[in-house]
């Protein structure tokens, strides 16, 4: 019997959100993401209402610094940067952490709050997937074949099943898919 999944069966869901090409690349080989676009009819506001925490890897943090960003200082979103090399602690409105994703999520869930946006990059996302900490997956698919580029994840985590929660089409052919982690044991495999 199929039962509709209960909405948000976990406290403070970890949401991985990424944009990619049809053939599964998040950036060109040189790291540029000029093919990504934000359609007029798409708004991040609903998403930002869900979260109060953002998490990224050190390399993604450095790229966002170069682009003039670097977290959400001034906003109410607590931003955590995972790094093995940078010292842990709070600096410039950011929280630098050295602990494992599992320890981090356990600690985070001891206090109440909203959901958590796992921004990437690929290596941090892979580590979260490996530890099976990704509860929801939001994928935006841009209507282009890149032919080559940086894959969504570096290899090295076991297969993870999801269930589709929502699929929407925006202008200019952007597809938005929302999935929830399906942690039931494998079905149908003999």
């Amino acid at each position, binding site marked *: 019997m199929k039962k509709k999944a209960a909405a948000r069966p976990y406290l403070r869901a970890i949401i991985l959100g990424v944009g*990619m*090409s*049809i*053939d*599964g*690349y998040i950036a060109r080989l040189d790291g540029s993401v000029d*093919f990504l676009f934000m359609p007029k009819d798409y708004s991040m506001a609903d998403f930002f209402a869900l979260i109060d925490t953002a998490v990224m890897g050190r390399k993604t943090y450095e790229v966002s610094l170069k682009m003039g960003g670097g977290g959400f200082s001034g906003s109410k979103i607590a931003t955590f940067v995972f790094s093995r090399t940078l010292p842990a602690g709070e600096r410039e409105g950011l929280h630098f952490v050295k602990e494992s994703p599992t320890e981090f999520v356990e600690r985070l869930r001891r206090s109440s709050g909203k959901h958590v946006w796992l921004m990437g990059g690929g290596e941090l996302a*892979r580590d979260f*997937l490996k530890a099976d900490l990704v509860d929801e*997956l939001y*994928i935006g*698919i841009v*209507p*282009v*074949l*890149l*032919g*080559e580029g940086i*894959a*969504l*994840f570096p*290899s*090295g*985590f*076991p*297969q*993870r*099943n*999801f*269930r*589709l929660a929502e*699929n929407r*089409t925006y202008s200019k*052919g952007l*597809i938005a*898919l929302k*999935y929830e982690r*399906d942690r039931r044991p494998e*079905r*149908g*495999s003999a």
Partner: protein
Amino acid sequence: MKKNRRIIVYIATSADGYIARPDGDVKWLDRPRPKGNYGMGEFFRTIDTILWGRKTYTKGLEMGMKAGGFGGGIKNYVFSREPQKSGEPGFEWVNEPVKGFAKRLRGEPGKDIFMMGGGGIIASFLDEGEIDEFRISVIPILIGEGIPLVAPRHPAIPLTLTSTEKFPDGVVRLNYRVENRR
């Protein structure tokens, strides 16, 4: 009126964009089929020809595929740079350039043409402007690494989304048109 024959990539990918695991394995596609089998029967009524890359064909044989298994009257072509190895009945070996082959095929009367893949032959046909549509079934699964939809190529190709379909088991089909200037 003579209808133009379209060459259609009809394929499943994981949510992270792969058509198979690195070794070609597609066991992750083995899942209970929803009623209607994703409209595959309907699709097969619109085609009369299947194009195979050599590796995909070999994998198919390993999995027990037979030419007649796709319905009667379907022509199967296997593209390979190597000379033909096995004489599997019902599969015609092709090693001529894509352009000439596609032009001849399109010139013959018939139904649409199913491009089975894999990534290598899809890329070769794309390079020559000989793919008309992609119909991609996105499976709700991450496999982490594998064979990409299109073998590595330089030019980025924009596609036009024409429609989407959602199936009860969470598979989403994305239908795209390639804007070729053939």
